């Protein structure tokens, strides 16, 4: 597999994992505000929580977009990406 294809595969999986991490953080912030009810968690939930959540969705959509345009750019096989993909398995 050529290097650009490797990078694209890694970036797609990496982006989705990153999006998952961000989403978990955002969900935790917003949920904690409900349980806590203190001013600072409430303010953070409505600012940082929302921003982190939107960043998570943006990362996921970007990954899907890259994956959708992948065959047009470089990968003609277009097999579904395995989430276990890492630097060893694609060599």
């Amino acid at each position: 597999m050529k290097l650009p294809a490797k990078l694209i595969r890694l970036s797609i999986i990496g982006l989705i994992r990153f999006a998952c991490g961000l989403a978990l953080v955002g969900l935790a912030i917003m949920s904690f505000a409900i349980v806590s009810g203190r001013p600072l968690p409430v303010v953070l939930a409505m600012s940082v929580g929302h921003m982190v959540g939107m960043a998570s969705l943006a990362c996921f959509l970007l990954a899907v977009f890259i994956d959708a345009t992948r065959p047009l750019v470089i990968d003609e096989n277009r097999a579904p990406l395995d989430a276990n993909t890492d630097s060893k398995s694609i060599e």
Partner: protein
Amino acid sequence: MHIELTGIVTLSASAVAASIIVVYLVRRPALDLTVKLWLLVGLGVLPGIVAASSTASNMHRTTDRSFCGSCHVMEGHYADASDPTSQSLAARHSRNPFFGGESCYVCHADYGVFGYALTKLGGMRHVYKYYLGGYNQMTLAHAERVIRLLKPYDNANCRQCHSTTAEDWRRIPDHLSLKRELDESRVSCASAGCHGYAHPFTKVAALDSATPSSSVATTDRSRGARP
């Protein structure tokens, strides 16, 4: 701890979304269409529901008197407003079911088309002052002497209920003679010579510590009457 319906929706949707995400991270399935759709639900749809419902819940919670009283500098205001025996203007209004547990918000909210949003933006200033402006370092006694409204209380807030058009209101000579000043909030309804301060204990605290050269007294005089 009371969690209302929107809060329950937030926690439920959050739990489901987190489950989807964790399952994906643990199992690491191939990224086919089904997985993408599940991730769209876990990263987009459910977090969207969480964001909307938590905002609704948090916005509602910020109107609660206990929320205002959760900062220690407002404990005196909270205790007085919640005291069933207090005769202060704030306490008497808080005992009115229309004000109820949201008495701080009902009296201090800006009204008008953008009133809700402007009030919440104003609340951000309170948060800033508390965490970064030194309020969290103040003792309650000191806070009651120095923390004052940013601008004189607008009588328009009183007139949301007290329309000033009723015959009973117009029968009071002072109301008629001060009509213009009241309309322009140059004289506060909640001032010493009228209906009394809304939070009179803060004025007592200020007077107790006031000296002719004290900055607090100077500040109070320069800002005029306020509740």
